[in-house]
């Protein structure tokens, strides 16, 4: 029990962020029309590509002779970048189609 309480107070900041972000995430897209479900999903998909930052850190910290870490990290960077770049480009292409209607 004490362990748990200590954990909570040591990681207060992070716990606050998590809770607030859950509410922000829900509030922010609360009123999305069904037309935009797909682009929104695709955009959110690109945003979680932020995981690539973890891959970059892994890669950048690896010793130059640790080939397992380098190899896996390299693949992780490629996959993460695919997620980010592909995600944003696909979303942009979807939304490009919507733009035409206003002219």
């Amino acid at each position, binding site marked *: 029990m004490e362990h748990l309480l200590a*954990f909570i107070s040591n990681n207060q900041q992070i716990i606050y*962020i998590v809770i607030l*972000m*859950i509410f922000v*995430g*829900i509030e*922010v*897209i609360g009123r*999305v029309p*069904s*037309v*935009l*479900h*797909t*682009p*929104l*999903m*695709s955009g*959110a*998909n*690109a*945003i*979680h*590509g*932020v*995981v*690539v*930052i*973890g*891959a*970059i*850190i*892994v*890669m*950048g910290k690896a010793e130059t002779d640790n080939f*397992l870490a*380098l190899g*896996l*990290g*390299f*693949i*992780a*960077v*490629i*996959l*993460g970048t*695919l*997620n*980010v*770049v*592909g*995600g*944003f*480009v*696909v*979303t942009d*292409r*979807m939304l490009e*189609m919507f733009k035409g*209607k206003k002219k």
Partner: protein
Amino acid sequence: MSDHILNLCYLVASVTFILGLKMLSAPATARKGNLVAAAGMSIAILGTIFLYRNTETGEYLHNYGWIFGGLVIGGIVGTLAARKVKMTAMPEMVSLFNGMGGACAALISLVEFNHISKEMSDHPNGELIQSLQPTILIIVLGLIIGSVSFSGSMIAWGKLNGKVKDYSFSGQNILNLFILAIALAAGAWLIVDPARGYLLYIILALALTYGILFVMPIGGADMPVVISLLNSFTGVAAAFGGFLYDNKVMLTGGILVGAAGTLLTILMCKAMNRSLINVLVGSFGGSKNAIASATGTQGHFKEISVSDAAMVMSYANKVIIVPGYGLAVAQAQHACHELEKILNDKGVEVVYAIHPVAGRMPGHMNVLLAEADVAYEKLEEMEQANEEFKTTDVVLILGANDVVNPAAKSDPSSPIYGMPILEVEQAKTVIVNKRSMKPGYAGIENELFFQPKTSMLFGDAKKVLQDLCAAVKMV
């Protein structure tokens, strides 16, 4: 100094993610929102590369060659894939990219575990091991969620492009839960006894299997919901990476997507009038009886020629077009818009009725028709269209099936029972364009096709529409 600038970069990026999502949920600002989030992401990535310092040693990152190599390869492949993909294949693409993110999270967990297990074998003492236990917990959870998201997304991708068929067997749900339970138990064991590094690979294998079995029985028509759910999984996996490195932007981005993705999943389910549990557990595969009984009622259907169909439509006051996946496959949106214009010139009122889940993703038809310059006001949502069918002379259904299947209202044993549909049978005449009498994506018969007021117009949607255009001009 550089640490402070990096923190500022992360703060800016987190704000752009929130703003980006907010703007993405309104039609007028959506495109800008996407760009805002992309700009924030670039700031966060570049900041990490040049300003990140190891918390233990204070060193900057190295191996720049590898990092930039990965970024360039990923960037080029990602851009090309996203640029080249056809509009119809967009949903698959999203699923594929989502799987990449999941795999990335899982790989990070693998490398980090190797890193700390080396540390532990170098300095084997109880205190160090105890202090690392929370880290191992995070690594294990990141690995499980990332792997499930990866293998699940790959199956969803395969299903959407038709390479993977629905597959289910009795007791599958129980087996799935069992696999998940073993994976979690192995994770718990690993945390208690971190020396057993091989457990991590068992967890990896189990999580990958779980992802496959989890998506396998879910019907293709429900894939958007599943992709959205896996999307939020990957968000959570990214957030675990944020815990691992105490990295605020990964944390905020990941949790944001996790929360927004979950809500979006629920909203999508609502658009189909189903609950999430119903989608995940009561999968289409489980209702073979209904399929059998529906095929029994097959009766006669009537065919109509292109010229007759053109005649009927030219003399109508009002035509409603119901587009579906068939239109997307045939890339017939331009031909469709052409027909609309020709009919308009003849004084026929033409509108489109868009079912929320027509095509294979919500909004699929809107995107497609917008590409062909169909005016936004001509697209009517389901509720509005359902009121207008009564006063409509001709409904032209282009490659849609399940979304107009009256069984959703009348047959409780049907797998799509309860889904709101476009009530096209209230119109005076219904013309259905399909390639063949084969059932639609949900794999069930549609009694609409056998009703007396319905006529079938077989053929590829694009070809049929072009022929119709020519024929209508002649009338």
